[in-house]
């Protein structure tokens, strides 16, 4: 079977909070906990080894998967899209609800300038064409957390269209080969978020929290240019980095600021596209990849068994690791779109079309926003490669891990060690420890200054590499001590006493005459054994090169 089977090697860690049928529901208990786990979730994509589906084996059972995404990013703004209510995560239920948000009769929407600017900036960063005129529409459906019975969105003429998002996937056994990919962006539209329903099954009640109702969303529609879970998850991660760099969204998936729906179909290459399903409720990059790959596999199996794919909405059950049809989405939805009559067309200007004497408070200049765009992640990575001679895949990891780039840069500021050395320590040792203990960069017990000092000691050859690892372990275990303190307490500094080292070498040779004999017989590996024995005797405090020199000298004498 040549199906693109994708499976994660590690068993899933159950850290994600329960998700119910519409977007993420947040446990009221521990926002801090979910925050840190979210960061771990975001980072896991690049780390997990997987089999990719990009090149299915040739044969008559060949299938190609087609994946498109709809991403909702909550706009980072002080107030909601159409009302003056504040936007806050984890505020007491229904404490951030204006008359408009509760859809009281007679209230009218007033467009938030900040949200429009965020949409334009995001559009520009994603190489979109910005529509100078865009329109708002009402999308109707009855739901308890949608007070007006409709959502204001941009169905007919969205604010930005026809863009692209470039992202890089690491492939190969060591994941050292970087492949650049592009996904087209169909459109970006401004729309309102819904409230939240909290289902109390015990008392068969539904409780409504309207704090989120009316918060501005950017819906980013990615064309079906992806073919597997990893591609989709990597594209989402790149978008997340861009949104965070722009400051247009905090884009934290665990807090529901970034939500992804995936459209998935399979077909045989050369044939028309298959019937697609939509998978909702994907609130971590890892589950996104997992759900997509499961769904691809399910569709292939279904078709190969002579079944057919229904155009349906499914949700991902993170406990079972599979997708299941959503009961409340059964049947054809007709959203009965209608132009929003209370909002005039949204007009944007550029420097050329800006009307003379226009009130700057009342107009938005696209060119001005373009000038204010910050550095985007792709540029940051390129700079790392050029400035430090870093490998592209290392620059990818540095940016993908939340806070890791900043950590690296802070170490660089305080150390004389080579950038390559620093990169290696940060990406291998430091990140390895974090992963092992399931911690975020911000939770690390080792500060950038401590690591910088340790690397300085190493650079000065005051300690050996092996001793440096021990110091690092000690730093991790007992925060508060400086590397220099640990080195002196544990007597880890390199042995500078030549005479003592020579005596140790002599003693070792005398204790192991067989090894010396081997060596004399011409076994080149025997010297390494002797070096190891001497190092052990020095408690790893001696430089192996120096030991080797001494041993050779003594043997030849």
């Amino acid at each position, binding site marked *: 079977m040549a199906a693109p089977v994708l499976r994660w090697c590690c068993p899933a860690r159950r850290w994600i909070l329960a998700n119910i049928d519409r977007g993420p529901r947040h446990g009221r208990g521990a926002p801090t906990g979910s925050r840190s786990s979210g960061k771990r979730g975001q980072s896991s994509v690049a780390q997990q080894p997987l089999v990719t589906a990009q090149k299915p084996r040739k044969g008559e059972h060949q299938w190609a998967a087609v994946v498109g995404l709809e991403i909702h990013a909550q706009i980072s703004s002080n107030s909601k899209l159409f009302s003056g209510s504040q936007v806050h995560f984890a505020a007491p239920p229904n404490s951030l609800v204006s008359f408009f948000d509760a859809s009281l009769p*007679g*209230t009218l*929407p007033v*467009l938030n300038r900040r949200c429009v600017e965020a949409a334009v900036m995001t559009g520009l960063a994603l190489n979109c064409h910005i529509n100078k005129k865009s329109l708002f529409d009402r999308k*109707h459906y009855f739901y308890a957390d949608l007070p007006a*019975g409709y959502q204001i969105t941009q169905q007919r003429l969205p604010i930005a269209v026809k863009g692209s998002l470039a992202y890089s996937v690491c492939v190969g056994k060591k994941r050292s080969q970087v492949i650049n990919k592009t996904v087209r962006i169909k459109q970006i539209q401004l729309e309102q978020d819904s409230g939240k329903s909290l289902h109390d099954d015990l008392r068969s009640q539904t409780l409504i929290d309207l704090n989120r109702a009316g918060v501005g969303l950017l819906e980013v529609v990615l064309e079906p240019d992806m073919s597997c879970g990893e591609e989709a998850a990597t594209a989402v991660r790149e978008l997340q980095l861009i949104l965070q760099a722009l400051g247009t969204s905090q884009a934290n998936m665990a807090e529901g600021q970034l939500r992804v729906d995936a459209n998935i179909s399979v077909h045989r290459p050369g044939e028309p596209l298959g019937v697609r399903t939509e998978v909702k409720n994907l609130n971590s990059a890892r589950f996104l990849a997992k759900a997509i790959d499961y769904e691809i596999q399910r569709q292939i199996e279904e078709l190969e068994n002579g079944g057919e794919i229904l155009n349906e909405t499914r949700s991902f059950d993170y406990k079972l690791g599979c997708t299941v049809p959503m009961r409340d989405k059964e049947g054809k939805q007709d959203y009965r779109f*209608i132009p929003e*009559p209370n909002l005039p067309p949204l007009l944007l200007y550029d420097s050329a079309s800006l009307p003379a004497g226009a009130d700057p408070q*009342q107009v938005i200049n696209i060119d001005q926003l373009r000038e204010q765009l910050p550095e985007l992640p792709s540029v940051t990575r390129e700079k790392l490669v050029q400035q430090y001679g870093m490998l592209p895949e290392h620059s990818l990891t540095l940016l993908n891990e939340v806070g890791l780039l900043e950590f690296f840069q802070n170490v660089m500021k305080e150390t004389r060690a080579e950038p390559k050395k620093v990169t290696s320590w940060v990406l291998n040792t430091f990140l390895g420890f974090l992963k092992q203990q399931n911690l975020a960069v911000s939770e690390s017990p080792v500060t950038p200054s401590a690591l910088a000092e340790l690397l300085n000691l190493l650079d000065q050859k005051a300690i050996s590499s092996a001793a440096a690892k021990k110091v690092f372990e000690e730093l991790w275990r007992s925060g508060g001590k400086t590397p220099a303190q640990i080195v002196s307490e544990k007597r880890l500094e390199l042995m500078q006493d030549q005479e003592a080292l020579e005596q140790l070498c002599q003693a070792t040779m005398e204790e192991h005459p067989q090894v010396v004999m081997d060596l004399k017989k011409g076994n080149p590996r025997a010297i390494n054994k002797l070096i190891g024995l001497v190092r052990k005797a020095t408690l790893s405090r001696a430089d192996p090169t120096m030991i080797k020199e001494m041993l050779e000298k003594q043997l030849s004498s």
Partner: protein
Amino acid sequence: MLGRTLREVSAALKQGQITPTELCLKCLSLIKKTKFLNAYITVSEEVALKQAEESEKRYKKGYVPPYNATVVQKLLDQGALLMGKTNLDEFAMGSGSTDGIFGPVKNPWSYSKQYREKRKQKPHGENEETNWLITGGSSGGSAAAVSAFTCFAALGSDTGGSTRNPAAHCGVVGLKPSYGLVSRHGLIPLVNSMDVPGILTRCVDDAATVLGVLAGHDCKDSTTVQDPVKSFILPSLTDVSKLCIGIPKEYLVPELSSEVQSLWSKAAKLFESEGAKVIEVSLPHTSYSIVCYHVLCTSEVASNMARFDGLEYGHRCDINVSTEAMYAATRREGFNDVVRGRILSGNFFLLKENYENYFIKAQKVRRLIANDFVNVFNSGVDVLLTPTTLSEAVPYMEFIKEDNRTRSAQGDIFTQAVNMAGLPAVSVPMALSNQGLPIGLQFIGRAFCDQQLLTVAKWFEKQVQFPVIQLQEIMGDCSSVFENDLASVSLKQ
């Protein structure tokens, strides 16, 4: 009241004809008077009165808005006194003010000396109780309140003629300002793209005064124009020779009563005789207007009514099997047939398969209708003169013979096109019919030329000297108050 059935008295309580306490006191008083029957062993007077009080609270429990509409706040800011809320058709859907939860509104002219005297001449002998006239609508309560001298000005809403229609039937001035001139914030929407707060007063100058208070940009309504508002103080026109009055030929429909038609001609001749240029003009798409209005109105109604789901406010049913069942029952109980009917048709027009054929087509026709007006005004016409209604007010018993939809189509025939084009229009009472009932004519102006429109209306008002309603006979005790009032009113005129 006490002789009625449980069903009837329940309806009377709902419509506010009597309060629970009043009803309770009536019963108690009769119990005392009929003690000799020995029907009661114990009379629980205190308990009953307490229960009546609680009942009263339950009747008042409906939705109380927690904020003021911009138009209301502006009036309050100017020191105006708010006398109360006036009656109307449910959600402003109707043209008679007969289809509201609080019962129909009665036209004050039903009780006027002018109307009664004309009726005496005829050998009718019908039941006076049931023979009262409708006010027109939907803002009939506002028109009746102003007409009966209970207040000096009232607000209405005007989506298809709901201010001008009852104004014409009640003999008052009804102004629909240009769309975008007056804030809709706080106005419960019927058709957002046509709704305008309306103004009802007893003379054109008063309407201009109120408009001066209400007009202007409101940051809470993005569809209000940002331009600074000009003064609405009306000059007294002495010379109309530079005016061009257009008479749209398509408004001469077969259903138009001969009386209204002859007054319309008389008005045109009046302008002509004073030197104005009066020309026949064509608004070629007029005949499609009412159908187009129906599609657009019901579509927006379907959308706007979606929020009344019983969750956040308003009536909620007792059913709690599921959220969907609760929605369905709440909306079935909470809306009358007219509202439900419009929601159903609107949702039908908005279905994916119907959208192009109905909604989009209606929007295109709306554009053509708006262009008709633009073309006429571009050809040099200053103001259009049309009837406001097909005839004078009809008796309630007559009115309810037809269904709401048919009545609305008839009632809005001359008024709704103006809403589709966003133009200002005003109904001015001209004269009494043979039956002694008021007939109003409508002036339509260029968009945002509300002042020019009202200036012409004021000149017309002065020429026609519409008679003051004479309510002394039926007002009994209040007659002396009225005499004083009327004296001052007539001094003005």
